[in-house]
């Protein structure tokens, strides 16, 4: 078991009313899973993903990640935890515009204090693996959306996380590029990486092993 969420609630108070963003979430994810979270706009998909990624907090409930009690951890330890085990892929890629492809991929290693030689070989591996060696000195603005997302995935993978969280990774891409990205995820999953993605697309959801359907912050069913 990679993570487990029990009785989790997240709400905001608006004008005396309590609006639930996440309502009584129960979720268990094992290593090697490929989960798709689906649901209409505003159903809480991204919020759930952010809670899992520890970028966002919650009001009530328990969250265990690799036997750590996330709900009791201090911010600092939480950050360490996700830094070590989680990689993020975003819908709009979120590459740093001022850094080259190479440097973008390298940045997480800098934050983990890898030595220069180690960084070099790891980044080189990653460039090789995704076939973007020739693009390593380009800036994000010089790449197509699909290529940018590949860089985004490479960056998420560089510190070999156990879990990849992808928020509509193909949302900004055309169908051909989207398919490429999904195949990439499939391949990574086959190699043992756990993946949780948020998606609108039925087709993309079929790449996963399990689909969680959300509505108004509540899990309505799991397929």
């Amino acid at each position, binding site marked *: 078991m990679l993570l487990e969420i029990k009785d989790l609630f997240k709400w905001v108070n608006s004008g005396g009313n309590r609006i639930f963003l996440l309502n009584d979430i129960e979720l268990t994810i094992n290593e090697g899973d490929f989960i798709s979270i689906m649901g209409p706009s505003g159903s809480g998909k991204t919020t759930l993903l952010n809670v899992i990624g520890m*970028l966002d907090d919650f009001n009530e409930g328990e969250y265990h990640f690799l036997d750590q009690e996330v709900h009791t951890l201090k911010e600092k330890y939480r950050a360490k935890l996700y830094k070590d085990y989680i990689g993020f892929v975003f819908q709009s890629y979120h590459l740093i515009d*001022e850094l080259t492809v190479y440097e973008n991929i390298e940045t997480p290693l800098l934050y983990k204090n890898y030595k220069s030689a180690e960084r070099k070989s790891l980044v080189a591996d990653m460039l090789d693996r995704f076939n973007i060696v020739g693009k390593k000195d380009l800036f994000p603005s010089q790449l197509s959306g699909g290529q940018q997302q590949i860089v985004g995935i490479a960056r998420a993978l560089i*510190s070999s996380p156990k879990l990849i969280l992808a928020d509509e990774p193909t949302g900004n891409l055309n169908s051909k590029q989207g398919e490429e990205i999904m195949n990439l995820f499939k391949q990574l999953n086959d190699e043992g990486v756990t993946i949780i993605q948020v998606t609108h697309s039925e087709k993309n959801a079929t790449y996963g092993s399990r689909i969680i359907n959300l509505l108004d912050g509540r899990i309505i069913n799991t397929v």
Partner: protein
Amino acid sequence: MLRNYFKIAWRNLIKNKSYTLINIGGLAVGMAVAIVIGLWIYGELSYNKNHENYNRIAQVMQNQTVNGITETWDALPFIMSEGLRNEYGNDFKYAVQGTWESEYTLGFGNKMFIKTGSYFEPEITEILSLNMINGVRNGLKEMHSILLSQSLSEVLFGKMDPVGEILKLENKVDIKVTGVYEDFPENSSFKKLDFILPWDLYVSQDWWIKEVLESVNPWDAGGSTRTYVQMAENTIIEEVSLKIRDIITDKKSELDKTYEQEVFLHRMSKWHLYGEFKNGTSIGGGIGDVWLFGVIGLLVLLLACINFMNLSTARSEKRAKEVGIRKAIGSNRRQLISQFFIESILISTLAFLFSIFVVAFILPFFNRIADSHVVILWDNPLFWILGLAFSILTGITAGMYPALYLSSFKPVKVLKGVFKAGQSASTPRQILVVSQFTISIMLIIGTIIVYQQINYAQNRPLGYDKDGLIAVSTTEETHKNIDAIRLSLINEESIIEMSESNNLITDEWNTAGGFEWDGKDSKLVGEFHIGSVNYDYGKTIGWKIKEGRDFSREFGTDSIQLILNESAVAFMNLKDPVGKILRNPGEASSVITIVGVVEDLLIASPYEPVKPYIFANVKGRGKLSEFLIKLNPEKSVKESLGKIEAVFKTYNPSRPFEASFVDEAYAKKFGNEKRIGQLVTLLAILAIFISCLGLFGLASYMAEQRIKEIGIRKVLGASVLRLWNMLSKDFLGLVIIACAIAVPVAYYVMDGWLQKFEYRTSISWWVSVLACGGAVVVTLITVSYQGVKAAKANPIKSLKTE
């Protein structure tokens, strides 16, 4: 890691060229101002420090109290230095007296030069620790000797060693060069001394001093020298100063109770910056300017830092996304903070390096208007250390807000794009803009008032006509032949009139006390400034007779006649002064008649009331050392000067002819205020420039931030004018707040400054209207460029970017 930070900082700078230019440029200009002023202050504070015995040197001065008014003088009796040596020998290592700097002619072969020098007792060379290039320090022991400055020696002798050469002083006395000393530096009180002559020689040339020194009690006779001392080891100047306080009163045989004299020591470290006295105590002097410019310099620097901060924070909000990404991929807060700090320190350091070039560029200009000799201390490590420390400090201050504020964001918030600089985020920036404009407006108001005051004083009635008036020093030959010179020049029609007087009309004249007259208040001490002149003086300067008549030869050429100025009449409290009699202090029997009253002549400071003056017609050369000549306005100045020179040369063939213009000397009275005015103007312009630069940057940022809003409004039908109005309104409000703060503060400060002048302008309301109006116009122009550009942009483009 560090490299990564630098890299991204550098790329950000390159990518946003205009932002970088504004940011670094503005900061560099601000730093340059601070550096120039800092260097200038350093120069002022190190004035005279080149003298080895700086801390042990003092000038002897005295406070004289007459009619309840205390005035401070550096003139002392001829016996003072000897008296100090005899009475307080243990307290002083040296005590010397000398004359004030004056121009003398020095002849070598058949060449003659007019140069500036003083007579001094021999130990002056020790006190000033002269660095001898040729000869020896004690070269003033012999009566007929002279020490030359290096530059004078080069003028006279070129590269050769002049020791032993003979010069002719004032075309009369042979003197032997006994040494050459290194020139005094620019920031020494003695920098004007081209040469030094022995005091004994001075005494030998003047029968009066000899008489005084040989009289029964020389302390009674007085005299006029300047006196310097070097303290003995283990003495405290202030203590010794108290000890010698009553030396004159104690030594005088008869005590004049109406007249108090207290002697004190004024230490060398205070000469330059604390040289002004009022009621017998030091009230500062140059130190006021040091403070003034120190504060203004800091303010300008503050403006630049505010800009830097403002732009950095404005920019950094654009970078919130980057913060979010970095956090999501594992950066912790500390790392982000150091990244932002490194960026701002990089910028401020670049600005510092750039400012060095700016300083090198503006220094000559600054030195010209400030009449200073500021240099960059290239080889002083302290300068560089301070500069770098300062840039790091600036960088940290400016980087503080983005570093601490932005790094605190939750990544989800920024990445979702919900992050928006709300009202609260822009408040500090608004405060910064307000303070910037407050400073600028204050400087504008200050500048206008300084110029108003100068203008006011310049327009003050002079009481004479300074145009076409020139002054030439008399010599024995020309004095003797004044009537012939005058007639021949008038006949040639090169001049209108010519006369002689004791002083230049632009310098305060000597005083004499003890006058008596009928109806005098017994408590009043009859002290006046004495204008020793000859018959044609009034006609030469064109003074205005109010009552009675001018001097005239028709009333007997030998009798002394008196003309008072209006202030003297008021001082004496006389009604119908013409025909009244004044009794001379020295000889009670001699009476002189007042023949006329003239309108006040503005002789000394244009900012102070005119003092009581008595003008008397006299004859002796000792009292008449300057010719005053009114040129014929119908002839060209050059032609007339040529003719005058030719006539003077017939009496003094070898003496160089030198004439000075009264209007130039008069203009010098405003030198200091003009200098302040010019500098404050320069600083005000820079301050406004920097503020506008910041405003421009901020406006472009705001326009960028609101680009979507502008697009939507445009689609909904807003006109360019309305959009411009919307974008400019915010800034205008800030400037108006700044006006409200700046005006009262500036009025208060400037009112204080004006109190310094007894003759001062009043502050009028239009000054603040002008300053505020100017600030509003400048703001509108600055902001409009960006506003109009944003308003005119095609909305489709701006809306598509989301």
